């Protein structure tokens, strides 16, 4: 059966990749092919949900859990069927909703890749598998949101969505490292047995990743930007995929969160506060798609709350019910956008009356969103709140439930009003039958899942999820929340009808601009830092290097001058001195030594000359000389004596 599990992911992945490679050449076949693949996906999903197979493909080595491993357990089985089902319905809607000349090959290519990534996410059993699917889902959502890349602002919206969710994804990288450090394994279920500091790190990482993907506080604002995508993309991203993935991951990792203590509490509060704050943001919107986007974050907040308090069955039920409700509402919003050319709430006055089929479906879905009994979200929300222990948390949860009735009421009050005549907006003025069918099917589930309020059905779900014995809401709680929803809904409709000024005032409040959450995601600080570092890089580091080089050159110049002036001078000096010494010694040689020799010779010559003089040859002179000599001898004798 593991081949079937492989097919679940590979079938949409490969056909999606093929469509992308084929490009515009595949535009004509893209729609039918995508529907066929999505339909096959539903069959395969049902098969794997029944047989619960396991698939492992070698991927990374060295440590346990490096393989690509897909496992279908109870939770995965529910999610796989949900994802495949919603994917099929949305694909059908997309085929009729996209304009005829659209680049369908690219659209359905990315759509199928996206669905494949979501299916892999909900069956992943190892961290590499999870991260692979998780990030590919983010990247394909970028491509889908920025599908109309040639329209201003749309690529930027995709960028914002991808960068924000990736900021959360960093948590999963860290969690993977912590898992390896704590357990020596990358298998997801092993992470539950982690303890000590690494468990805290892993839990923090998982929490951040899930909050980012699910657009919980403080990451919520990317969802607003994501509304730039085509309607089918919104219908898919905001129901069973993408934002749902974060809630799913927290439910899956609930034991880890619980083992740290703080992480579970943090998740619960993050979910509850998101449900409250983003609910208020939804109330203040004037654009239907923006309203629905904020409400998505708010409703997924209940899933996150459930994961935090350990209400696995309640959270899963909420995830499934919300998927049906929100997909239905987005299909309706998309159909109205195509038909009436507007998603502005004031211009949608009476939209549900104009197109009755889709209007009925949207009404049912909106009532479910409000939490009206006996529809789905009423039951699932109470199942979640039944698991909440703390009073404060419980009160916030109930208040958030009441707020959801307010924003749902806001939609209903407008679309069910009497139409105010045809506006000047461009549109096809037509809702295709297939769209109505899709919305109808979704509405049936949105209403029908209310059976989860029956204890028997809830127990069946718990058995599937393997979590028997979770607290269920009592009759009193169910009645209370139902009454609360009805009262809030009624009041809202009354206020919108009687005092439109209140709503206008709300839409001028900061809540309308998503309570300034977008500012948290502003790239400005990063850009400023980047520019500052680039300046340092140019002005300091590079200049230091160039400075060293210039310094070296200057040093070389100095050395060269020293070479010319000192060393060379010294050498020439020595040479000159030597020359001078030599000349000196030459002079001494000729003047002194040679002179002395010659002087001596001269002296001898003189002496010789002088000695020749007395020898005159005259006898009388010899006598005289002898007399003088004897006289001198006599004197000498006298003196000596």
């Amino acid at each position, binding site marked *: 059966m593991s081949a079937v599990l492989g097919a679940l992911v590979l079938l949409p992945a490969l056909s999606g990749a093929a469509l992308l490679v084929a490009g515009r050449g595949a535009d004509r076949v893209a729609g039918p092919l995508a529907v066929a693949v999505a339909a096959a996906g539903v069959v395969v999903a049902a098969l794997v949900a029944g047989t619960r197979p396991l698939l492992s493909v070698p991927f990374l*080595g060295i440590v346990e859990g490096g393989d690509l491993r897909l496992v279908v357990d109870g939770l995965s089985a529910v999610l796989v069927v949900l994802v495949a089902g919603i994917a099929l319905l949305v694909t059908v809607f997309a085929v009729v909703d996209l304009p005829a000349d659209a680049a369908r090959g690219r659209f359905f290519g990315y759509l199928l890749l996206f669905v494949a990534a979501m299916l892999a996410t909900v069956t992943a059993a190892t961290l590499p598998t999870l991260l692979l699917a998780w990030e590919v889902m983010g990247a394909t959502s970028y491509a889908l949101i920025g599908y109309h890349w040639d329209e201003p602002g749309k690529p930027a919206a995709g960028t914002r969505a991808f960068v924000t969710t990736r900021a959360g994804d960093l948590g999963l990288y*860290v969690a993977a490292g912590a898992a390896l450090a704590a357990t020596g394994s990358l298998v997801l279920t092993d992470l539950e047995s982690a303890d000590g500091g690494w468990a805290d790190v892993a839990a923090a990482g998982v929490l951040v990743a899930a909050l980012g993907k699910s657009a919980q506080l403080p990451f919520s604002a990317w969802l607003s930007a994501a509304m730039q995508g085509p309607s089918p993309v919104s219908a898919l991203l905001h129901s069973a995929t993408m934002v749902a993935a974060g809630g799913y991951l927290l439910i899956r990792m609930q034991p880890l969160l619980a083992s740290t203590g703080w992480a579970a509490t943090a998740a619960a509060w993050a979910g509850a506060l998101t449900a409250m704050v983003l609910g208020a943001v939804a109330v203040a919107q004037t654009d239907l798609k923006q309203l629905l986007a904020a409400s998505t974050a708010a409703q997924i907040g209940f899933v996150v709350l459930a994961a935090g308090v350990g209400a696995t069955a309640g959270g899963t039920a909420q995830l499934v019910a919300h998927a049906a409700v929100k997909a239905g509402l987005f299909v309706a919003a998309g159909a109205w956008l195509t038909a009436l050319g507007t998603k502005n709430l004031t211009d949608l006055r009476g939209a549900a009356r104009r197109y009755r089929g889709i209007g009925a479906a949207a009404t049912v879905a909106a009532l479910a969103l409000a939490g009206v009994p006996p529809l789905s979200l009423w039951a699932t929300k109470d199942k979640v709140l039944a698991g909440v222990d703390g009073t404060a948390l419980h009160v916030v949860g109930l208040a958030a439930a009441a707020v959801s009735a307010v924003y749902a009421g806001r939609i209903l009050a407008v679309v069910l009003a009497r139409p105010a005549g045809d506006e000047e907006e461009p549109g096809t003025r037509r809702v295709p039958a297939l769209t109505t069918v899709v919305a109808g099917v979704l509405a049936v589930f949105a209403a029908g899942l209310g059976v989860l309020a029956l204890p028997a059905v809830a127990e069946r779900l718990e058995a599937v999820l393997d979590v028997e014995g979770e607290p269920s809401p009592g009759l009193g709680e169910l009645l209370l929340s139902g009454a609360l929803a009805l009262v809030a809904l009624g009041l809202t409709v009354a206020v919108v009808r009687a005092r439109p000024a209140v709503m206008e005032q709300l839409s001028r409040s900061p809540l309308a601009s998503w309570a300034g959450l977008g500012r948290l995601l502003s790239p400005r600080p990063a850009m400023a830092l980047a520019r500052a570092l680039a300046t340092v890089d140019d002005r300091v580091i590079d200049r230091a290097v160039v400075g060293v080089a210039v310094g070296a050159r200057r040093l070389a110049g100095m050395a060269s001058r020293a070479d010319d002036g000192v060393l060379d001078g010294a050498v020439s000096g020595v040479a000159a001195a030597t020359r001078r010494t030599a000349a000196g010694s030459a002079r001494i040689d000729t003047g002194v030594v040679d002179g002395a020799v010659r002087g001596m010779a001269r002296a001898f010559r003189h002496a010789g000359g002088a000695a020749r003089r007395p020898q005159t040859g005259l006898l009388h002179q010899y006598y005289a000389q002898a007399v003088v000599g004897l006289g001198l001898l006599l004197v000498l004798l006298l003196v000596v004596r």
Partner: protein
Amino acid sequence: MLLTVVIFLPLLAAAVLLAAPRIPGRVAIGVWVAASAVDLALVGWMWLRFEPGQGASGVVDGLAYEAHLQWIPTVNAGYHVGVDGLSLPLLALTGVLFLACAVYSLREPDRPHTYAALFLFLQTACMGTFASLDLILFFVFFDLSIVGMYFVIAGWGHGNARRSALKFFLYTFIGSLALLVGFIGLFLGSEERTFDMVALAANPPLADSPVAGGLVLLAIFLGLAVKTPLFPFHTWLPDAHTDAPAAGSAILAGILLKLGTYGFVRIAMPILPEAWQRWAMVAVVVGVISVLWGAFVALAQTDVKRMIAYTSVNHMGYVLLGLGAAGLVASADEGARTVATVGAMYQMVSHGLLTGALFLLSGVLWSRGHSYAFDRWGGLARPAPVFAACFAVAAFGSLGLPGFSGFIAEFQVFTGALQAAPLATVVAVVGILVTAGLFLLALQRLFTGDPVVPSEADPDELAEGPGPERADGTTATAVRPRTATRMQDLRSREAAAVVPLLVLAVILGLVPRVLLDVLEPAAMAVVELVGR
């Protein structure tokens, strides 16, 4: 013998090209392509016959295709080459990237003989460096690669090419001198007085003299850090890239930077294990700073090629983070350290493919409009969809999206390094967020919005004969408005060079066992040697 043929075959082809200056330029490039293709085929053959593991995993034993000849017997330096799991992937990468560059340059109009010969010479130098098992031989090939690249940038670059080339040469050459000092230190410290890497790794020198070992490691570290390049020795890189021809940039980033990181794994870690352990934290910190510095500075660039150049600093930082973590023996178990090492080595191959592709693609911009500035281009997805698709794929690969080779590398680096250096790793993870932002921003600037193309004429188009505009007496540049909207999409040779690189990056991202089966045993061996 086979390995020697692989190393010197390109040099032989280069000699033939220089000896026969009469053959036409197109044929000369043909010879280049053929020689590179044959060389790649031989590496492929080596890969097929290479059996990793088997108890002997490389580095110190179990080397394949070994050749050992005496060269300078007085200092016991020889022609010692061989292949193991560390070098084989990089040899293959060299073969692939040089072939891609050859195909990309098929129509090179400027002195094609010399151009081809220079690249073939460079290929020999790179192959030789990766195959060397002797420090002196390594050094010689290492320096020859610098010389070759100098001439490529100075001779075929644009802009301020000579200055950039000189900066590149001086900086990396001085770095290599530090490396030489380190090698001599290893020689003097070794018991048997040898330059042989295998002998040195088997019996590490300077094991019991921490100061001398530290100093030798410092010299080697500095030399390799300049080449890698790591912060703060990276500033030659953006200038060299901006002014180099596209193929030169691809080789410079794809292969030459790997000479540095490869030196860490092949020389610094196994031969100086004790010093590496002691100073591993420095490698980690330098790696993390490079990661963040490269990413943030790249984000601020206004020029495509400079941006890609800075992302190289970022990507090489991950390698150092992984290798540094591998040295923190006391704080992490062997499994985690091995994972980090495998990631670092995977990153070398992955970065070579993806950055090579990105640089070749940015060369397309230059050939069409003689500008890399973001503000001179816009809306290119409409006139050049194939180019846009290829660039987008390469960008997503480079930002580490799963499904591409970069993810396999970065995931393992982070996962393996967290235990050893938790804080550093958590900080480094931010790098992949910044790269995501900067690449998406680049895609937005280049490909969306209104089409904007610089007004200069396409030199290739001019070379292909007079166009219709010029037939009626006016020049092509004169009639084209400041913001033309025409842009020739990828030509077939450009696509033939880039697409295989991207396909390989995807294959390595989805079926990583192809490479991991070779890498993992070698990484285990390195980690074991470092842990001594």
